[in-house]
């Protein structure tokens, strides 16, 4: 019998707390697999700030820091400056990275900090119960935008990858989604390439992963996948925005 699929060593053998149909789980698996395939799990130190993934320290099978809301890139900077030979990554939500932690991510990218960021964009504050994020789409309902996000009232959603791609120190920027098997494969490739940019000492790298939150979107898991495809991908186009060779 040949084994065609098994749980990655990159994750611990515990049940996660994520809601059924939430794509945080898929993204965890891809990050875990990428670390194992690159042989960096044993020298990895991850940082997960608050958000639904705050318990990631129980799931990634490597040294981990929990961090304050938005501050993971600063925490990762401190770790990386102490251990420049280790592999350091952050795993952050969109409320975390694009709102309260905007300064930290921009400056980590700007310094060309040799860290890798997994940015999980589900267009909502998941953990706190579905409030509006800076990434919430125009018209999308949230508990703090009961009539749907209004551009007039609070602007259009921020496109983080496009913005970070303009920063010199950011050497790898790609947006992916995990809504189909093909997209999941592409997401994994991007994560591996992003991690290599750090391992080769080239600078900062980020993979933005369009993700679902069926619970706070008020949808079933398949509906959420479809909503992501129909609404998020048109506003947040998938693809690579920057690679080291283009960065020069």
């Amino acid at each position, binding site marked *: 019998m040949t084994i065609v699929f098994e749980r990655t060593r990159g994750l611990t053998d515990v049940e996660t707390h994520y809601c059924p149909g939430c794509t945080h789980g898929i993204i965890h698996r891809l990050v875990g697999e990428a670390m194992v395939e690159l042989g960096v799990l044993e020298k990895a130190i991850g940082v997960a700030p608050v958000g639904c993934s705050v318990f990631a*320290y129980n799931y990634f099978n490597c040294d981990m820091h929990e961090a304050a809301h938005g*501050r993971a890139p600063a*925490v990762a900077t401190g*770790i*990386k400056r102490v251990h420049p030979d280790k*592999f350091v990554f952050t795993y952050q939500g969109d409320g975390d990275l694009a709102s309260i932690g905007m300064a930290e991510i921009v400056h980590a990218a700007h310094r060309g900090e040799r860290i890798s960021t997994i940015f999980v964009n589900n267009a909502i504050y998941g953990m706190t119960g579905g409030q509006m994020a800076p990434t919430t789409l125009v018209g999308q309902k949230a508990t703090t935008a009961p009539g749907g996000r209004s551009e007039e009232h609070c602007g259009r959603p921020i496109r983080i990858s496009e913005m970070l791609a303009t920063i010199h120190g950011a050497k790898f920027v790609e947006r992916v989604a995990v809504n189909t098997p093909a997209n999941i494969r592409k997401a994994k490739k991007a994560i591996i390439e992003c991690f290599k940019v750090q391992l080769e000492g080239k600078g900062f790298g980020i993979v933005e992963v369009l993700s679902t939150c069926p619970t706070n979107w008020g949808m079933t898991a398949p509906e959420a996948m479809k909503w992501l495809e129909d609404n998020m991908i048109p506003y947040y186009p998938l693809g690579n925005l920057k690679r080291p060779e283009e960065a020069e």
Partner: protein
Amino acid sequence: MAKVLMKGNEAIGAAAIQAGCRYFFGYPITPQSELPEYMARELPKVGGVFLQAESEIAAINMVYGAAGAGARVMTSSSSPGISLKQEGISYLAGAELPCLIVNIMRGGPGLGSIQPSQTDYFQATRGGGNGDYRLVVYAPANIQEMVDLIIEGFDVADQYRNPVMILGDGMIGQMMEPVEFKTPKKRELPEKDWATTGTGGKRKPNIINSLYIAPEDLEAHNIRLQAKYQKIREKEVKVESYKIEDADVVISAYGTTSRIAKTAIAKLEKEGYKVGLIRPITLWPYPYDEFKKINPNCKGILTVEMNAGQMVDDVKIAVEGKFPVHFYGRMGGMVPTPEAIIEKVKKICGGEI
């Protein structure tokens, strides 16, 4: 080692490097900028890293990362910047990470002024950030003492896995005095086997964390923290006192204010007054017990601070209502004069107040 003449802010940096600190994360603010400037010059020479963060919030979180990764690390700021660091300080205390934080205080509230002040006593000793936590807080009165406390402070931080704060004011940061760098008494320091260094495939993952979602777990964590704080109270109190057993009035003052109080006491003694001094060196843990040694016939305690009266609360707790507690302070960066203190002491002696 021979004595060298150094400016306070630079002496802090030299002491930290001497203590083995190799990482500094900070953000410019007067009156402490000579310290990050010194570290930017000197740390690379010893293989260390100085990094100017984008804000005090980022700086303290870099400290959180570096401390969790096992390094000796510090940051410094002045009052408004220390306010921004409070969230991070609470996380450091919650995750039990050792580090050194320097606050060269200036007048407040708000942007206040850049002149020396002691207005952050409450913030330093009562929390400032959220949650039941404590910092070990040192208030040096001269540059030599500051250097000694920094060198020892790094050991104290490591021994208890707790942030340590040096609380100075603009005066001590700017003045120049001769200093000597001494080796502190040796402490048994625990191995940092909890640090995130990568598992190397040899151990279970280490986790730096302050989140305990189950209330019974968080309570247990807090009980452990409180037991640690109790041990610090028992072992780490530092205080200087002077002739309190037969004083008619005892002055209580800390940091540079205590030097002004000493000048006042010397003048009063020449006029025949019996005036003692209690100078807390640790503001937390506070030297409450020292006040039990005061002459039972003492007419009153005079607390002198460069604020509206903050330590005076601790003095009241310490004397347990046995003596009247008076306060004299200047605010906004104004400095108390020996003459004003002398006048107050005389009034207390004469039963006028």
